[in-house]
Structure formats: C-alpha cells, structure tokens
C-alpha cells in the first residue's frame, strides 16, 4: 500500500482521538461514580436501575412509616399501661371496700374512683403526633367526655376508625387502637344466612342492651333478602314498655355479600365501613353496630347478637361511685365488669404488642432489603474505581507514547536530509 503523508497524520489523529475518547469516558465515570450516565450507555441497565431505585424509594418510605408508627404505638402502649395501672389500683380498692372495716369511708372511696375516672379519661384523650391515641380517625373533638348533666360519660366522636399504614409491598397494617374497642360498646351481629333462602325471607334477632345509666332496652334487628347475595337490614331499640326510642325509624342498610366466598363485602356500598354508629343522646344509648362477622353459606340461617356493654368502664365506675355516695357497696357484677375491663385492656395491650413486634421484624427485613438494593444498584451502576484508575493510567501512558512517536515521525520527510 502506498503511504501518503495524509495517511500517517490521519492514523495519528484517529488513534489519539480514540485514546482521548476512552480517557474522557473513564474520567467522567471516576468523577460521577456512575457507569450509566444516560440510557444509551446501557438501556437494560437503566431499566434495572429504575426498578431498583423505585424499590429503594419505597423501602425508605416504609422505613419512615415504621419509625413514625412505632412512635405512635409506643405512646399507645404507654397510655394503655397508665390506664391499666389505674384499673389495677381500682380493683384493689373495690376489694378493700368489701371489707366491712372500710365501709365507713365510702365517700373517700367514691372520691378515689372519681379521681381515677378523671385520670383515665385524660389518658383516653391523649394525643400523639397530632392524633388522638384512642380517637380512631375522627379528630374533630376530644374522643371522650362527660354528658352535659354530669350523669354519664360518652364518646364525643366516632372512635372506631382505623389508621391503616403500608409497611411493605404486601403488608397494610392498622397502627392504632380504636377507642371503641377499649372503652366503647360494640354490638356484633354474628352468624350466617343460607344462600338457598328465597328472596323475601326475613330473619329477626333481638338482644338486651343498656343505656349509660344501666337501664335495659331491647335491640331488634331485621334482615330481609332482597336479591341474590343482598339483604336489607332494619333495626329498632325499644324500652321496657315496647316503645321505640327513635323519633323516626332509622334508615335501612343494604348488605352485599361476595357470591364466591360468602363474606360481607359492603354496607350501603361502602367496602371499608362494615360498622355503623347508633347514637340516641336522649336515652344515653351509644354503641357501635358491627356487621363484620356476618356471612353467607349453605347452612341453615343462624344470626345472633352479642354486646360487650358490661365493660363500658367509665359509666360502670361512675355507677359504682354514685352507689358508694349513696352507701351502696359495689356488687359482684360491677366488680366483675371492672375486672373484665382489666382483662380486655391486657388483651388489647398484647394486640398492640403484636403489631409492634410485627413491624419491628419488618423494619429489620427492610433494612436488609435496603442494603441488598444498594448493593444491586452498586453492581449495576457503580464504578470499580481501582480498575478505572488503572485503565486511566494505561490510556494516559498510551497517549503519551503515541504523542512522542507522533512528534518523532510526523515532521520528518526527505526534505529534512537534503
């Protein structure tokens, strides 16, 4: 091949350009620490980085959620321990009262109980991070208070709401203890409807409930099948003489069941609110009606009602205090109610403890996951600095050699020797 001067200079320029190009890439990689600076550097790697970065962002958010929720749950546990400590103290006092020696100072005991109610009420209204610890999701008012005539305690707001938080791809966990489950009255409708029942079939149930002063009422529920997997529920509360407490009948509720698994899926179209509040202030009747335990199956229809009213701790204690001031010592049912509440708060503490354990475990898993993701991202996009520096030195050496050789060869021609 004939070698012209243009070939030599083109070769020199082309080769030094290639070296400089490699030096430039290595330089950029070392400075930024990233192998992939634009999608065309590695389209597949970019997609992987997106996925890893998305997961890392989610994991960081889950970690923040856990941190915030743990702080709120710690506050919940602390409040429950305070209440339990007060209740334990009261159980002791109630036992003391049973001793005739102490029955001469019933007013003092009544004062102690009133004082404990105040402390417990204050704790029941505790706030953490701007949220009422036992207030459910309704923060419009303090969750618990005393009625205008000072005769009974009542929930000022709906305390049944749950704060659901996402802690991982598949874990959504409630992080609060709804006050209604601790202090309130829940009337549960339980059992199942037979899917074979004909449309129009009516099922009735009745249960005894009490107002805040301990007066007895009858809760009557009525379920009528209106279509396949659909029922209409009506209810009424009547006093001892059979008179309804409602000025107008409450609106009927529409219950829809899943045709495949038989679970209740919605009440009046709402999939999350499978409970509703019943509040009759004039009669001091207040409770949460829960329909969560209703289902449909092939067995004969069997529906029942159950209420946890005896553990309405504030009004039970108020009743005991009132009785003591009237010289009446607490009866066994009242003492049992206080002990019941003690058991319930212990059970609920364990429930909250379980949640804390669960999300603490998740926290460890997320830390590990975050570590793994960082490693994956590093593998995908990280620069091996040591290798890059060695490569850079090598390229720099090649450039110097090529420049030296170029400087020796390029200017030379026959002209130099003539």
């Amino acid at each position, binding site marked *: *091949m*004939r*070698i*012209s*001067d*243009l*070939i030599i*200079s*083109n*070769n020199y320029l*082309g080769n030094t350009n290639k070296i400089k190009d490699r030096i430039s890439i290595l330089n950029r990689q070392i400075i930024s620490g990233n192998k*992939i600076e*634009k*999608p*065309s*550097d*590695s*389209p*597949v790697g*970019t*997609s992987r*980085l*997106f*996925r890893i*970065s*998305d997961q890392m*962002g*989610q994991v*960081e*958010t*889950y970690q*923040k*959620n856990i941190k*915030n*929720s743990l702080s709120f749950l710690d506050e919940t546990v602390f409040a429950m321990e305070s209440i339990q400590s007060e209740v334990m103290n009261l159980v002791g006092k109630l036992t003391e009262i049973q001793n005739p020696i102490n029955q001469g100072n019933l007013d003092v005991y009544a004062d102690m109980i009133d004082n404990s109610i105040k402390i417990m009420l204050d704790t029941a209204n505790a706030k953490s*991070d*701007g*949220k*009422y610890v036992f207030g*459910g*999701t*309704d*923060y*419009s008012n303090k969750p618990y208070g005393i009625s205008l005539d000072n005769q009974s305690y009542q929930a000022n707001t*709906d305390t049944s*709401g749950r*704060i*659901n*938080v*996402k802690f991982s*791809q598949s874990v*959504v966990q409630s*992080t609060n203890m709804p006050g209604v489950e601790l202090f309130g009255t829940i009337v549960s409708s339980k059992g199942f409807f037979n899917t074979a029942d004909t449309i129009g079939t009516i099922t009735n149930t009745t249960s005894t409930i009490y107002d805040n002063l301990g007066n007895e009422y009858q809760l009557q529920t009525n379920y009528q099948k209106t279509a396949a997997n659909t029922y209409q529920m009506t209810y009424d509360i009547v006093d001892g003489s059979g008179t309804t407490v409602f000025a107008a009948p409450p609106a009927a509720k529409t219950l829809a069941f899943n045709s495949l698994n038989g679970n209740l899926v919605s009440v009046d179209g709402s999939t*999350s*609110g499978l409970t509703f509040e019943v509040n009759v202030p004039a009669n001091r009747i207040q409770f949460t009606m829960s329909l969560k335990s209703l289902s449909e199956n092939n067995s004969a229809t069997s529906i029942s009602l159950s209420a946890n009213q005896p553990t309405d701790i504030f009004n039970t204690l108020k009743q005991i205090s009132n009785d003591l001031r009237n010289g009446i010592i607490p009866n066994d049912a009242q003492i049992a109610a206080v002990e019941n509440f003690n058991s319930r708060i212990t059970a609920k503490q364990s429930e909250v403890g379980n949640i804390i354990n669960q999300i603490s475990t998740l926290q460890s898993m997320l830390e590990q996951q975050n570590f793994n993701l960082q490693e994956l991202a590093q593998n995908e*996009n990280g620069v091996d600095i040591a290798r890059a520096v060695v490569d850079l030195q090598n390229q720099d050496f090649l450039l110097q050699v090529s420049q030296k050789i170029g400087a020796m060869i390029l200017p030379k*021609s*026959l*002209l130099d020797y*003539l």
Partner: protein
Amino acid sequence: MALTKIFDISSRSLAVYRRALEVTSHNIVNSANPNYSRQRIMFSTETSNLTAGLVWGNGVKISDVMRVRDRLVDTHIIGTNQKYSDSNRQSQLVGDVEKIFSEPSDLGISNLMTTFFNSFNELAVTPNSVPLRTNVLNASNNLSAKVTSVNQSLNTLKGDIKQEFQQKVNSVNSILDQIHQINYEQFSNAYNGTPVNDLLDKRDALVDELSNLVNINVVYDNTNSAVISIGGALAVDRMHSSQFVAEEVNGKLNLKIKDGSYPIVLTGGELNALSQVYSKKIPAYQQKLDAVINKLIEAVNGEHVNGFTISDPQETGLNFFEGYVNGKLLINQELVDDPNKIAISQDGTEGNGEIALRIAQLTDAKLLNGNTLQESYSSMINGLGNDGMLQNNYTQANQMVLDELAQLRASQSGVSVDEEMTNVLKFQRTYEASAKLITVADEILQTILNMV
C-alpha cells in the same frame, strides 16, 4: 542529424522538466489539503524522425498531467457518508433527547414519580399533618415541573431541528448550484484545453459534502460532468440544477423539489436524520410519555375525587390534577392554595388516610397495557436508550468503514512528500543534464567554428 537538434531536444527537455517541477511543487504545497488529488506527469517521447533509414529520437514531452483518483472508492465514500452522517446526527439528536429526560438520576421523571407516590404513602400515616400534605404538594410540583420541562424542551428541540432542516436544504441548493457551475466550467475548460484537475477536486469535495446532507446517486456523463439525483429526482447535471424546499405536512418534515408535488424519499444524510427524529422519534417518545401521564392523572383523580378534604367547609369530588394541557401537568390550584383540600379521607374524618393509601398503591397497579406506570415509563426510556445505542453503534461502524475508505483514498490520491521530493531531485538532475547537453552542443559547435 543536424547539430542544432541537440539544442532542440535539450531545450524541449528543459521546458518539460520545468513543467514537471511545477506539478511536483503543486503536489507538495497541497500535501495537507484533504480534498486535493495528487497529479502525475505522464512523460512520453516526441515523435521520432526517419532519416537515411535510421530512426532519430526527438526527446521527451508531457502527454498528460493526470489526476490520480479512484471512482470506485469515491462511490463507496459517497454511500458511506450518507449512512454515517445519518446515524451520527440521529445519535446526537437522540443524545439531546436523553439529556432532556435526564435519566437515570434523582431529577428524572421515574424518581419523581416514585417520590410522588411515596409522599402519599407517608401521608397515610398521619393524614391530618399539614407538613406531610405540603410534602405531597412539593412532590407533585416537582413531578409536574419535570414533565412540563421535558415537553417544553422536546418542543424546543423540534423547533431547532425544523430550523436546521431548512438551513440544510438551503445548503443542498447552494452546493447543487456550485456543482452545476463547475460541471459547466470543467466542460468548457476541457474543450479549450485548460487544465481542469483542480476544478474536479473542488467538485468532488462538494459531492462529498452533499452526500453528508442527503442521499444522492452520482454518475458521470461522457463530458465528465457529475449527474446527481436525490431520492430519484434529478438534482444537477451540466445543463441545469434543481432547487429543493422543506415542508411540514401532518407533523412530518419533507424535502421536495420546488414546485414539485411529491416529497423526496429520504434514506440517508443529515436531512434524513433530522426528518426521522422530528417526524417519528420525538412524537413517539412524547406519545408514550403522554400515555403515562394521562393514565397517572386518570388513576390519581379517580381515587382523589372520592375522598373528603379536612378543610372547613369539608369538600369532596375534587380532582388532584387539573389536567394535562399542551404538555403541562397541572395540579388543582385549590389544593395548592390549601393543602387541607387534599382529599384523602374516605369517611370524612381527618385521621382517615385510606384514599392516600390507595393512591400510594397505584404504583403497583397494572394501569397501562398490563404494566405499571413505572414499567411503562421505564420501557419508553429503554426504547430511547436502545435508539441511542443503536445509532451510536451504526455511527461507529460507519466511521470505521469511512476511515478505511479515507485511508484508501489517501493512499491513492494523497501526496507523499518523500515521493515528491524524490521526483524533485530526479527532475532537477534531468533538468541539469539537459542544460549540460546545451553546453556540450555549444562546445561542439564552438570546436567546429574554430576549425574554420
């Protein structure tokens, strides 16, 4: 043979080698000119005389000064130029698009979309927290600003491409005019016997330049005029040159002959790159981005509209995003003015964050053709990256071929100073010898004259 014949042969030789030295010096001074083709002197003997039954030589003459050029290499270079400049320009433009999306980075849409959904996830923990609500608005504003900026930058880039296309078409017209002029001049000069080699070099350089701009086909007629067609349409010959214009029809950049009806089929050169990126690639990226953003708006608003605000008075039925208008992702101004109007409560209580949770879960929902929004966006960026990589690879491959061809051309047409200097010495010595011959002839003549 007459004694004076030596004078004739020698003086002719002096003229020939002086001319040869001129050509060599022309070669030497153009050794660094990349468009120059070395010229070679074709020596031959003068027609001999037949006298007294003997053949008497008449010395040397220059039969031609030849331009060393290989048409086959030229044709290959023209073809490769079109491919190289097409892929190189496309690679640069796709690189510009990559810069606009600024992926993968914290400031890319992917990360901002993740942050947007995560902000709702965090808000679900404390739904009544104003700082967390403001955090949601900040994340939304960042996403909105990036989406808007990407669209604006893509439109600006399209505007620049359109302008460049127009300028390149003007360049094509200018080059065609010049080639037409040279075609004419080289024909008339050749007819008059004037050297045309340098003119042909100039024309070949213009043809090379044209092949960088657009796909051309070049043939040479019997008068050595270049006949060039662009996409099948005659662009220039010795008699005339066409004028081309740029036009945009239905968002597509076309090249057509002035007053012509049909667009030219572009297959190579920078004009094809500009047209491809303007008419196909950028609209395709925008379309995919629009699909992701529209689905994001639809899905987020679909949840948000069912939520309740915690403002006073409480409201429901509010959209989170106002819409996606002219590439601008707009957030509902009511929410921006009052973060409490972010409607994430399902039952109206301020501690309920079910809607926020559902919005956060949209990140895992298969909303677009069986893919999540992130996957769809990622697929788009993957396509963009592949386009860029493909064009880079094409460019490198074509560059290698082009380098080889350029070396081949330089090997044949390039000047070697060593070679030329050797010729200088050779011609100089011959010139000196010819001069010496005149001296010798003179001495012979002097000797004869002295005899008289």
